[in-house]
Every structure is written in C-alpha cells, then in structure tokens.
C-alpha cells in the first residue's frame, strides 16, 4: 500500500476558501492526493469535510483557491465536467436513483462511456444495442465484484441500507474513475457491514488502482485503511500526514477530546 511515495500527485488543492453568506465553511485548505493512495479526511461534524468533497467535484464553487486535477488547474468546474475528467463519488446520505434497479443504477454510472445517439437508441439496433450489451457486461463485472448478484434486478429503493451503500459504490465504480470520493461510506453500518465495505474499498484500490479520498468517522477504519490522513476542524486544516503521525498530533487529540462531539 505504500506506493504513494513514488507516485505522482493526481489532485492538489491550494488555498481553498469557501463560504455561504457570512458562514465560512472552508478556510484556506491546501493538500494533495497521490495517484493510487487512500486518503482520508476526518474531523468533527461540521468541519467542512463534505464541503471539501463538494468543492473537489465541482458542486460547490469556492471563492478562493484553485484545484489541480491531473495536471489541469482550475478554480471551478461543473460537476458533470468533473465526472467526465474521472472523478466519481458516493454520498453521505444515499443518493441512489430510487426508481431504478441496481443494474440500471450501475448502468447509469456508465453513461459517460456510452455515446450512441437518440436515433439509434430509439431503434435499439446496431451501435446502440452493441453499446448497451458491452456496458452491461462491464456493469456485471461490478455487480460480481461487489457480490450483489442477488439484487441485480431489484429496485434499489427497497434494499437494506448496507446494500444501498454498496450499490452506490458500484455506481461510482461504473464510471471507472481515476479518483473516487467516498463520503462516509460506512455511516450507519454494523461492524460486519463495515468490514465488508473496508474490504471492498481496499480491493477497489488494489484491483483497479483507483485513487480514493474518503471521509469517515470510524477512527479504527480510517487508521487501517488510509495511507494519509487530513484533519479538518471548523473549516480549518488541523493536521495532515501518515495515520500514526495524525494519531499523535496534539491538536487533533484536543479537537477530538476537548470539544464534545456527537460521535465516539
């Protein structure tokens, strides 16, 4: 897992500040993510973690700072542009397409890989059909990978929470992203489900070499999974480094112990 030393930087965030009205959500944040690593962002509730992810994939537009992704520097971009450049993500509160089946959710995740026009699609012949079949196979690889064959054709709205999280991961993977952002992938899971999910995250990272940035509350999980950890608190950058360094960092300890927080 210690591949990051040699690896290039895939994403670097420089001096990002974001505010809504008078509320400063992110204050001068800078960090980088190396290709192939698992990078965690931790911090108490309201620390700005989700906002940070939202900035990275273009959903929020920061007032200051810039983002360099795969060598291209920009201040902001539209979310679908971010997606087409290879950033995929999952959400803190599951954001699946509830009216669709597991398979269709994952197929939707592959929409950027599909190109045929309306005409062919209406006929469902020729290139459209071919494309559909090819991508179906790719989607099936993901279904197999995540071990969700039994729910392939079930509408996702009625699935148990843990499975929904898994489908959401599947949808993100379907895009074959270079950078995968996971927003609390294990929130609300029991320990068995957490273990499964950790396994999947590690497998994704090792099998596909996908770079992963994740937000997680469970310290044990974070320390086990991560190559490097960034700590935010009230929109400010508190620490950044290897899990062990962060664990020993006095500021972090204070932030976690000194202030009452909801989580353990």
């Amino acid at each position, binding site marked *: 897992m210690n591949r990051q030393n040699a690896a290039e930087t895939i994403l670097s965030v420089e001096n990002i500040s974001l505010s809504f009205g008078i509320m400063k959500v992110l204050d001068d944040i800078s960090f980088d993510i190396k290709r192939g690593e698992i990078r965690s962002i931790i911090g108490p509730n309201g620390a700005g973690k989700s906002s940070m992810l939202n900035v990275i994939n273009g959903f929020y537009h920061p007032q200051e700072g810039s983002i360099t992704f795969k060598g291209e520097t920009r201040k902001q971009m539209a979310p*679908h542009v971010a997606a087409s450049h290879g950033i995929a*993500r999952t959400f803190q509160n599951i954001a699946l*397409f509830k009216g669709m089946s597991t398979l269709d959710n994952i197929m939707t995740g592959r*929409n*950027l890989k599909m190109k045929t026009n309306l005409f062919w*699609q209406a006929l469902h012949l020729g290139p459209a059909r071919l*494309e559909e*079949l090819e991508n179906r196979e790719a989607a099936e690889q993901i279904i197999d990978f995540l071990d969700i064959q039994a729910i392939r054709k079930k509408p996702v709205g009625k699935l148990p929470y843990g499975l929904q999280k898994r489908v959401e991961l599947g949808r993100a993977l379907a*895009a074959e992203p270079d950078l995968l952002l996971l927003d609390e992938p294990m929130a609300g899971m029991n320990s068995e489900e957490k273990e499964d999910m950790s396994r999947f995250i590690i497998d994704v990272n090792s099998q596909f070499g996908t770079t992963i940035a994740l937000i997680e509350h469970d310290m044990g999980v974070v320390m086990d999974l991560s190559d490097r950890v960034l700590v935010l608190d009230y929109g400010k950058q508190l620490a950044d480094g290897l899990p062990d360094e962060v664990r020993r960092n006095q500021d972090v300890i204070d932030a976690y112990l000194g202030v009452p927080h909801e989580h353990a």
Partner: protein
Amino acid sequence: MIYRETGQFKAHYQDDQALFPIDQDRYVIFGVLFVTFALVPYLLNEYWLNAILLPFLIYSLAALGLNILTGYCGQLSLGTGGFMAVGAFSVYKLMVAFPELGFIPLVLLSGLITAAVGTLFGLPSLRIKGFYLAVATLAAQFFLIWLFNKVGWFFNYSASGMINAPPMTIFGVIVTGPEANGVAKYYLVAGIVAVFALAAKNIARGRIGRNWMAIRDMDIAAELIGVRPLVAKLSAFAVSSFYVGMAGALYFAVWLGSAEPTEAFDINQSFLVLFMIIIGGLGSVLGSFLGAAFLVIMPILLKNIMVDGFGTDSALAAHIEIIVVGVLIIGFLIVEPHGLARLWRIAKEKMRLWPFPY
C-alpha cells in the same frame, strides 16, 4: 398463475435485456398486436373506430410524450395542449403548402417543429423545478394558444380562425378529411402509435432513458456522475414535444378534421393528458395507454351504459359520470398511488408468484 417461467434462462445479454424477456409476456403482446391490427378494424363499427379508438390512440400518443417528460425525466409540464396545437398548426400549414410530401412525412415534420418549440420552452427547467416549473409551462400553453388564435398566417386568414384538414391520401387511401373511412384512419394512427410506443420503450431503457430517470430521481447525484442536466432535460423536452406534436397533428388532421385553438387545445387538454399519465402510471409506457383508456374510453362507456342501458337523463348521466370518474380517481390512488400500470405490474408479479403472496 399463468406464468410458467421455469426453464426460461438467458444465455446472452440481448435475451436478458429483451423488451419482453418472459415468454408469456411476448405471447400477450403478440396477441394484443394481433387483436389491434387484425381483429379490431373488422369487428368494430365506425362509431367505435372514429369516436372511441381514434381519440384513445391519439391521446395515448400524447400521454406517451408527456410521460417521457414528466414520468421519465421528472419535469412537470402543463403545456401539452399548447404543444399539441403546434403540431396541429404545423401539419395544417404543411398540408396546405406541401401536400406532395405525403401525410406521414408531414406528421413527422410537425413533430420535429414541435420538438424545436418544446426545447425552447424547456429552457426554464434548467433553473426551475417541481410545481414551479409546471406552472411556468403554462406560460407556453397560454402564449402558444394566443399566438395561433391571433396571427392570421397560422390559420390562413380564415374568418373565424378555424383550420380545416384538407383530404390527403397514403398509397391512394384517403386518411384525412370527411371522406376518410374509420378503418383507414385507425390503421394509420394505430401504426404510428405502435411504432412510436416501441421507440419510446427503447429510448427509455437505454442510456438516454436512464439519464432522464437519474435526473428525475436525484438530479444532483446524476450531475455528479456525469449526466449533463442541460442535455438530459432539453432532450426530454424535445422528444416529449415530438410525440406530443405528432399527437396534435393526428388529433387535428385525422380525428377532428377541423379545430380552433382556443377550444381544441386549451388548458383542459394539458390537464387531461397530465391526469392520464398520473392515473396510468408515471414512467410507464403501458401506463400512458391505460391512463388514456381510463379517461377517454371509460367515461364514454359509462355514459353509454347509463343513457342507453338505464335510460338515465343525459344531463344527469353527465353529472354522475364526472362524479364516478372522480371517485374512481381517488379510489385508484388510494389503492395504488403509482397508477394503473403499477397496479398491473403488481397483479403480474402476483401472477408470477402465485400461489405465494411474495
């Protein structure tokens, strides 16, 4: 109960993704098509064809169109009447100006013109959502009707603003105007509806359909996985309007034969088609047909039963009819809020699992 699925396994994706992967469903569809095209025109009289099935099919097409926009892409629209008017006036102008092109190409062309107009009026959807958008599409409805009522060029400056469909033929068979017989019109409309229902189903199950549904179910997530809201929404508006425009063209040229914009395409038309897809089932091709049947065929049957069957006074029958339709709407929504298509799907699911309940 009727379903026997044991042994129906799929060895290829194209079989698994087929329109009707279950054998029995395929038989049913072939049966329906057989009845539609081989039996109905010869078993039913002109009244049934002209007064019941033609409007049913044409409204089905319109409902299909609105369902694409509202059911699949989640964009509520109350501009259907206006867009039907675009289709109708387009085909009228084209029929008068270019009769040599043939009727079906003219209908398709009218659909395309409507698609362009629909796309234009779809632009606000990029900022406005939900009921707000619905009422915003009313702007299109009222503006378009006003335009067709006001600008003489559209109705060739006829005294009353009425437009009349001139007679046209397909392969020598008259399909518009008073001389056209019910069977010819029925075949024309049923053919168009069948082809475009298939096309709608195909689009809905492909990438574009999934993108629409993604926008509908969770627009932010959709955008974050690379669905471009602009493209998805406007394409839904365009395809939807294309269907609605064709429906408007057929509605005017084949069914009514003449029309004035203020009555034939008024706001009630928009509501009616919207009701169809809600009752029939949002996001369902079948639902479009069921909804149209519910709101076109059922009231007529109710009326005929009451007036012809029980000799009810025709005015009282009309009052009772509207009450019964209202009660049925509420009743169906209570039983199954997601429409007749869902009810059908549940029934089918029950059939497949029979005798088990789940």
